[in-house]
């Protein structure tokens, strides 16, 4: 399991378009992807879940990847959160 708190650096927070990019990418991996913010945990493969987390720029979320391709998944997905994709 790879788990780490990350700061959202994406210019507009995790809004509809970056969130949809996140989900599209997450779906390419077999591992479980979850995002947690202030005690609320949602599936990283659910756009509605991610939107309801209201991840503004500067907020902190914990990204967890669990499964056989967890390392690659974590590396790729963190880029979106940090606005480097």
């Amino acid at each position, binding site marked *: 399991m790879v788990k780490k708190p990350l700061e959202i650096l994406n*210019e507009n927070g995790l809004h*509809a*378009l970056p*969130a949809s990019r996140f989900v*599209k990418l997450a779906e390419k991996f077999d591992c479980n992807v979850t995002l947690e913010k202030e005690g609320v945990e949602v599936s990283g493969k*659910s756009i509605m*879940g991610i*939107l309801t987390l*209201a991840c*503004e720029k500067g907020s902190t979320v914990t990204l967890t990847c669990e499964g056989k391709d967890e390392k690659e998944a974590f590396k790729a997905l963190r880029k979106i959160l940090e606005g480097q994709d």
Partner: protein
Amino acid sequence: MLRERILKGIAVSQGIAQGKVFIYETKQVEVFQTPILPVYLKDETERFDRAIKKTKHELRNIQKRLNYEIGENFAQFLDAQIMMLSDKAIIRKVKARIAEEKLNAEYVYHNVIGEYAEKLGASKDTYLKERVADIWDVGSRVLRNLLGLTHSSVVEIPTGSIIVAHDISPSEAALINPKSVLGIATEAGGRTSHTAITARALEIPAVLGIKGLIGKIENGEKVILDGDRGIMIKNPSAGKIHFYEIAKKKVLELAKVLSPFSELPAKTQDGRRIDISANIEFFSEYTHAKKYGAEGIGLFRTEFLYLTRRGSPTEEEQYRVYDALAKRMKPCPVIIRTYDLGGDKIFSDYREANPFLGWRAIRVCLDELDFFKMQLRAILRASVNKNVKIMFPMISNHEEVKRIHLVFEKVKKELRAKKIDFDEEIQFGIMIETPSAALLSPHLAHQVDFFSIGSNDLTQYTLAVDRGNEKISQLFEHFHPAVLQLIKQIIDAGHQTHIWVGLCGELAADPLAIPLLIGMGIDELSMNPGSIPRAKMVVRAITIPECEEIAKGALNFRTPLEVKRYLRRNIHRKFPGIDKVIK
């Protein structure tokens, strides 16, 4: 006789419409709770799956249509909607609850969607709050499919209607049929809303942001919608009806006379070619530019890319739009202007007392270099098409141009290092729209390949008049001698340094101004696509020496009124053919 009432809003799409009000309400779909017998539970989940599939199919079709009509960048909101629709967590939750609660699919789905919408609505972030509308837009579509209801009353609107609504959802706006809908008026929305863009793309008049509209108007009543002035007239008086009928007739007659000119070159009687190009705001407007005979895009306002998606487009997204525009316009030139945004549009917590004198346009870009460089890379990459030029807005001093050059060269160097192709000869221009830039133009000319005079802002800054302020808007005068003197100086400065000078702004489309500007030596005029045939007609009626004579005399007056009187008299004397297009 009922009293006439004028309802004011924001003019977002030009034109005049007279028709019957059709109040379009996005009715909440009514959902009832029905118990399902255990043997039918499987059927119920299958019915739900079918509704999701059907909805996905519908959204894909809308997206295809929008991609084709307006451009891919615009239709992206549908990507997000399709993802919301196919969200596995929601589908799983709905199916589990159908089985568990033994209740009908629409009831369960409505509740689940409602829970998400509520969470999102509680967010502090205004952008996210607005996504609640997206969720219900998708959700209602699924519910209507589950209930076997037809959607979009927009499609079924009777011919000759003016749509009146609180707001029109993006996927609904996409279905508006310009054959039956004469105009659009809404309570919500502004210049950059989806409805505004759709209306402009379809060339139907629209006035948005009319406060309390629905309470003031009834279904079926006859109204006049004036998309030029941003008003809707309720119970129009006989005089008003007559006024608008004549105005409409004139517009139609003139359009008939002028339309052949869109095909003809803009060449004066004595053979000088004047470049007539189009100002456009979003990608799909290139079709209007072509239809009306533009010989290029003189101003592509990139801020709409930013505003319509409420956030910075990535380099890739920008590149795709710039590249597609360059390809469609080939071999005609496309001038891309970098973001002319106020700081408040980019940073939601930024406020300032004097936005027009504040942190805007190039000033923001030079402070936010990553943001700026992303746009420069996208424009440079699109320049491989060889017909792209770049232009920077709101220049007010020499250092800014120097700094832009440094950043621009750095971005080019980075691209070369990455072996990414671009046009090494790309023309670099600046807008001259502040009095300081106008007065410094002899110096600035040495640093650039062209000038484009932004006559609207130049007028506003020179005269210190905010035209949006009703109390002083009468002071806003393009024909003010001070403005004309500056324009003359800018053109002369450009020509002394052998660079070309264009003008984009309302003055470029004014038949009274065209002979004057040409007489002053302007090389290019860029305007609303719809004004191009008229401008070509004027250009084709004139000769250079006579325009030069007009220009020489025009700078000797003290007031705008005297200038206009002089121009009218002389144009009438020298080129009587133009009279009919001068107001």
